């Protein structure tokens, strides 16, 4: 799934592009969410014990509805405006990957059967999770639920991540939320992970910013796409023996996959025959998406009766809990008109240097990007007296020194 090892590669080489954020800080933001990925997660996690899953009276699984309903409410309550994007027809290049997944699933189903026969609970749990498949019906159920809740639903012509990225690029969404790293390869300016995790897990949201990532990796977007293809994507094989780290080095050295093919030793690395990297690259660069003007995105009031009849009568949800949840959706709707302060004021830099010396966590390649020393910048209050400062002045030397701070030569005087 996604791009192999990209998270670690970025943590090692572009820590500035990754930032932990509080869930609340996305208040008022429009977020494009890869729905299929979420449904898959819900089917695995929500209301499961062994092979038993949440079902309605007819015996149909309802885990995905349960998950979708309550997690979406959590987003709405935090003032987040979700846009759910559903997968369409996968591109042909993905067939191989899909076939692989499907055979893995078949193996898991077989494994599950054996485990049930043997009564091995641990294996039952493991294989039943692996044999989960999101069906068309699951998708349709969720679309119906979301529409009743007044949440916009978009059906992508092809890959949902690509559509999400397009929404984000055109400014219709602030960020893309998925667990799949190829959102970045599709060019989403901002990408969030763990947004849909349950609050009980207390996982902070990880925000990736592509501009900063490219800056830190010191490569262009086209080169980043090549890097992802080399690391291993869903669309084609990669060159054996070249992982993320090597790929990054080679891309920096030779500029593109073509350059690499020309220059690397053919004996050492085996380049796959009929390697469709050009097509894969095109899928990332010009994916099949709906143009931005053709879609209207609106958050409406929830359809109370519809929700009750669908969830309570149709799927055996508790009437009490659904009514309470609808109240929450309505209350959240009122909140949605609150503006954010940073849409009026833009970030400025500050000159203060932390008194607290940040220890060794700032060594390069550290996995904790948030532990690095702060950039030198102008203190906030100076904004009132000084002309607007735009951008942040970076001292590259600061970043490398873990022990000594460079004295800041500029003195800001106040009247």
């Amino acid at each position, binding site marked *: 799934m996604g791009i192999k090892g990209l998270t670690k590669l970025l943590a090692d080489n572009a820590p500035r592009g990754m930032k932990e954020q509080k869930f609340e800080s996305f208040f008022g933001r429009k977020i494009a969410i890869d729905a299929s990925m979420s449904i898959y997660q819900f089917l695995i996690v929500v209301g499961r014990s062994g092979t038993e899953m949440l079902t309605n009276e007819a015996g149909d699984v309802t885990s995905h509805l349960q998950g979708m309903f309550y997690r979406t409410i959590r987003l709405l309550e935090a003032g987040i405006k979700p846009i759910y994007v559903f997968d369409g027809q996968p591109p042909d290049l993905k067939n191989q990957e899909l076939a692989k997944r499907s055979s893995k699933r078949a193996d898991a189903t077989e494994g599950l059967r054996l485990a049930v026969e043997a009564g091995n609970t641990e294996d039952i749990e493991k294989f039943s999770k692996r044999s989960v498949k999101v069906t068309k019906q699951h998708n349709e159920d969720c679309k119906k639920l979301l529409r009743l809740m007044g949440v916009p639903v978009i059906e992508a012509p092809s890959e949902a991540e690509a559509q999400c990225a397009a929404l984000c690029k055109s400014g219709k969404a602030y960020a893309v939320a998925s667990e799949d790293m190829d959102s970045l390869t599709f060019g989403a300016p901002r990408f969030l992970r763990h947004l849909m995790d349950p609050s009980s897990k207390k996982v902070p949201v990880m925000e990736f910013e592509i501009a900063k990532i490219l800056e830190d990796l010191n490569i262009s977007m086209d080169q980043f796409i090549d890097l992802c293809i080399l690391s291993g994507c869903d669309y084609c094989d990669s060159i054996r023996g070249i992982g993320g780290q090597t790929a990054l080095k080679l891309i920096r050295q030779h500029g593109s996959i073509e350059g690499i093919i020309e220059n690397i030793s053919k004996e050492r690395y085996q380049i796959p025959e009929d390697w469709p990297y050009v097509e894969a690259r095109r899928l990332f660069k010009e994916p099949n998406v709906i143009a931005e003007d053709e879609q209207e995105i609106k958050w409406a009031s929830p359809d109370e009766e519809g929700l009750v009849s669908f969830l309570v009568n149709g799927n055996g949800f508790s009437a009490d809990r659904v009514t309470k949840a609808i109240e929450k959706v309505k209350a959240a709707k009122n909140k949605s008109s609150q503006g954010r*302060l940073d849409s009026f004021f833009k970030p400025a830099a500050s000159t203060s240097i932390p*008194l607290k010396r940040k220890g060794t966590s700032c060594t390069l390649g550290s996995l904790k990007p948030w532990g690095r020393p702060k950039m030198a910048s102008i203190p906030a209050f100076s904004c009132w007296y000084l002309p607007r400062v735009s951008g942040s002045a970076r001292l590259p030397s600061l970043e490398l020194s873990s022990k000594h701070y460079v004295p800041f030569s500029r003195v800001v005087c106040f009247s």
Partner: protein
Amino acid sequence: MLELRLVQGSLLKKVMDAIKDLVNDANFDCSSASFALQAMDSSHVALVALLLRAEGFEHFRCDRNISMGMNLGNMAKMLKCAGNDDIITIKGDDGSDTVTFMFESPTQDKIADFEMKLMDIDSEHLGIPDAEYQAIVRMPSAEFMRICRDLATIGDTVVISVTKEGVKFSARGDMGSANIVLRQNTTVDKPEEATIIEMNEPVSLTFALRYMNSFTKATPLSNTVTLSLSAELPIVVEYKIAEMGYIRYYLAPKIEDDEEETKPEA
């Protein structure tokens, strides 16, 4: 190296009360001229800006621009341990990961040192441009607090409208609605009881009362409060801190739902 000695220590306690409900963690920025803070609440809807100028301290030493990340809840707990007449000194050494609050009793017979751990806070500073506001209202701070509290019993939001006649605060909710109008009033015995309205253009904006009520926690710091409003901008609620500086709150207005289209984000 940093050493700030404040004779009226109770002021710092009041400042903490005015901030800690809005913001959990924040960086204090100290320069040779002032001790300041700028922080947003977790949902990035409100911002608090504090400025205490060096002149207001009995002793103020800060060699370079320093920022100190503090948990405000913990800081408030420590400052609660200071007596109301105590002199408070804030001390920090270069490279140390703690800050020390020293409390001296007025008679100098008791000295307490409280040392607090600092934090790494990765916060965003916002540049706030100087703006001409369409309307500026100065009024007694206790009156403003009363109005916000009363309206919060009626509804969640307050509409603040300034016209030539005066300033109107209104709220509506399930049980009904409320309107409170204050007229310009400069003929009072004490200047701090006056209500002064400067208006270039009539303006009307809607705000969440929850935030307004948390701003009024600064009421003990000043007898008067100034509200600055413009149609295009967040409201500024300012409490002057006598001879030292100010505490200012910025709150983004509520926008009508039809204006749903996304503003381009920078």
